[in-house]
């Protein structure tokens, strides 16, 4: 049986093999994870579609694979023993997930270099008036996919174009296309600028340097941030919420929650409050479809929670937040965060968010201006709650103040809308109803 890379999720065409979890000759069971793949959105494991002996591993750690590509071959249903396994050939299966190992370098680096180079606008010109040098097989592929080979930079001698060059060129086209309007609702316009990479600087002139290939995740974060930054007219609205009484409530009920195995956190309170505010202010939960000039209101509230992982920022989604009580939210939030940190989150769990919360309070810091996660139209940035002297009923009191910043897309929300929404959030936090904390 040939195991090919399945369609992982909509819009995900492939990824990088981070870890191969099986060796040639090894027996695998159906649904056993055979390898870990880092895609643009997460690291996920590929389950084996059947049981048997792994006869051949067709990919290497660090290799970029695309949907439909042959990964491994499995034979029969586990009759033969693992005698065929040659330890020397077995890939580092249980080794620590080292991104971009030495062995993976040549291929991936080569493709990156090629991509970087083709980023300039290449146009083949021959004084002899001949078409660019490419073997017949490549010319046939180009004809089939309607690719103009004069735009492809050949990496071989005399500028000959090989399949890798064509791949790199297409990757570049995709990267450029990816910076255009988003597929999921098109919350931002065709005005999205195509960024041209800045000129390469030789940093080694000033001292030793180290280069590290951007992981697919890093590339995605980078791309999406640029996309958001350049396409969304953004406003940052600051507010301070007094969470003194909220913290008191938390203290009072934390033990009961702990007994149920759930941690009551500021984020879980915020999720609870946000769901209600978003229900009341559906604009903040909407997306903008510029192509049809429509606002898409969503009758569901799926809130993304930014999670800091070893590999970078990942935003898993908590579903139907408005339908869940505080216990459920606390439990789910904890489970989801853990899963994300361990990078076991599935790609589906990263899709379909309608609003995002980014809480940096556990680390520190005050107000910050988060970047909107398009095609969503708003994000709440939460800083660290700190004890501050504030005026309460004309007297100075020491209260715990939570710095909040709502960043929103002015195309979807006007200032007044945003302030009303944030006001409700703050009111919800400050006047949190204790009955919501009761466990049944």
């Amino acid at each position, binding site marked *: 049986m040939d195991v090919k890379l399945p369609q992982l999720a909509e819009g995900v065409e492939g990824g990088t093999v981070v870890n191969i979890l099986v060796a040639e000759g090894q027996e695998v069971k159906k649904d056993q994870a055979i390898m870990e793949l880092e895609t643009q959105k997460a690291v996920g494991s590929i389950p084996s579609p059947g049981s048997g002996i792994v006869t051949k591993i067709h990919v290497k750690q660090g290799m970029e694979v695309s949907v439909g590509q042959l990964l491994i071959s499995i034979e029969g249903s586990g009759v033969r023993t693992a005698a065929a396994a040659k330890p020397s050939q077995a890939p580092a299966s249980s080794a620590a997930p080292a991104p971009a190992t030495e062995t993976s370098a040549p291929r991936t680096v080569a493709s990156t270099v090629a991509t970087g180079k083709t980023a300039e606008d290449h146009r083949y010109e021959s004084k002899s008036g*001949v078409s660019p040098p490419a073997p017949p097989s490549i010319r046939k592929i180009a004809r*089939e996919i309607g690719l103009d080979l004069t735009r492809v930079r050949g990496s071989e*001698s005399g500028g000959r174009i090989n399949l890798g060059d064509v791949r790199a060129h297409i990757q570049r086209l995709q990267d450029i296309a990816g910076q255009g309007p988003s597929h999921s609702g098109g919350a931002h316009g065709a005005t999205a600028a195509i960024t041209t990479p800045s000129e390469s600087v030789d940093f080694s002139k000033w001292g030793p340097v180290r280069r590290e290939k951007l992981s697919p995740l890093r590339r995605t974060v980078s791309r999406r941030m640029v996309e958001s930054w350049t396409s969304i007219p953004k406003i940052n609205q600051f507010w301070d919420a007094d969470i003194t009484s909220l913290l008191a409530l938390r203290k009072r009920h934390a033990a009961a929650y702990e007994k149920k195995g759930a941690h009551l956190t500021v984020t879980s309170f915020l999720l609870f409050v946000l769901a209600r505010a978003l229900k009341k202010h559906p604009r903040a939960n909407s997306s903008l479809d510029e192509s049809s000039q429509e606002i898409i209101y969503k009758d569901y509230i799926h809130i993304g929670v930014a999670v800091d992982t070893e590999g970078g920022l990942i935003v898993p989604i908590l579903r139907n937040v408005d339908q869940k009580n505080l216990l459920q939210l606390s439990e789910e939030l904890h489970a989801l965060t853990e899963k994300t940190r361990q990078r076991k989150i599935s790609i589906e769990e990263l899709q379909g968010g309608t609003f995002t919360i980014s809480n940096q309070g556990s680390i520190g810091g005050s107000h910050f201006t988060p970047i909107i996660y398009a095609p969503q139209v708003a994000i709440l940035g939460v800083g660290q709650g700190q004890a501050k002297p504030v005026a309460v009923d004309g007297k100075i009191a020491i209260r715990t103040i939570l710095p909040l910043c709502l960043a929103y897309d002015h195309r979807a929300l006007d200032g007044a809308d945003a302030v009303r929404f944030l006001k409700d959030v703050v009111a919800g936090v400050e006047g949190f109803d204790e009955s919501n904390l009761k466990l049944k």
Partner: protein
Amino acid sequence: MEPISTEIVVLGAGPGGYAAAFYAADRGKKVILVEQNPRLGGICLNVGCIPSKALLHAAEILREAKDSAHRGIEFGQPKIDLDRLRIWKESILDKLGQGIAGLAKQRGVQVVHGRGHFEDSQTLRVETSDGQKFIRYEKAVIAVGSKPAMPNAFDLGNKRVMTSTEALELADIPHDLLVVGGGYIGMELGTVYAALGSNVVVLEALPSILTGVDPDLVRPVARAAQKAFKEIRVNTKVQKMATAGKQIKVTMEIDKQLREELYDRVLVSVGRAPNLADLGLDNTKVTKDDKGFIQCNDQQQTEDPNIYAIGDVNGGALLAHRAAKEGRIAVEAMLGEASAFDNVIIPAVVYTDPEVAWCGLTETEAKAKNIEIKVGKFLWGASGRALTLDRTDGLTKLIIEPETERILGVGIAGARAGDLISEGVLAVEMGATARDLAETVHPHPTLSETLMEAAESFYGTATHTFSRRPS
């Protein structure tokens, strides 16, 4: 009568037609192949490539035997039994013809023997020995080839005035043979008859034989032909021919002077014309150019969307391998694939003695188009293999794009040039550079080394020649 229905009908079972028919069948199409001759294979197999090469092989043996005295090997005067030579030649054609018929059968390609005539854009009428048959098709491929041109002035109705078709029948060995036209057909058949013992005179209207071929490649052929033939006359035109008893009186114009000569036979090899008469093309939307060849796009599709045309009927280089390639492209186009006759390198071979072969850009063409090129050249006098074969009369050259060192064309004159050119075709198709060819190890001692050495000589580092490095 109920018409036969098919997806594809191919008209003409030459190397283009049968290649197209077989490929279409291999790709799952229902195919009918229509051929008027009992033996499949078209001009190439019956009256072209194959019989001429059989006779050229015989000629080579005769010449080798004759030229062996200085190696200490002497044969007596050869005895030539034309009947047996003819039977041997025919046996090759039969074998190949049967082979094609067998391959058609194995693939389920139905062969209908008879002359085809288009009734409309989707119907072909075939005049078979069993009467008329109508074939209703979705797509048709015209692959009926060409025939030797015979200008009216030369068409005396006298068997002594031959075209290549009759010359290949080898009726006799004329004492004096005039070849009108110094193109590849005239030169090849002239070579055959000269070896068999005829006094061959070649007339060429233009200043050189093998017009269009790079002069340095022509030179070894011209030199050998001057030795083997009685005479090669360039800038000479035939004014008139007339029957004179058992001979033909030919009036020719040389240097504005008229001259009359008697020949036992005359071979007219002045070009070829497409076999498009009585094909019923008027009943379709197929169009022709001013020379009478079919016009089609780079997918071989004619102005009639149901009809494709391949091979000699389209004009250009009338070569079997081009027809076969076009046949495959036509089939892929019918299947909706993005195939196209786009920058396909078609090699050309002249089977004279020595042979001449070239592909891609020629020096002549580069000059005409004002394309800046560099040439890497290797003369066979420095080839060990050429010396052992006693065939130092050759040269191999690469046409190179100066900036990229990409090989744009290859030209070879010399023994087995036709077999050697394939490496050049691959190099050009692959976009190889002279460096690629120079770095590729070639077996020693072979003639193929000359390609490597030509590449090395471009860099001034050929082992077996010394040249000052280009500074």
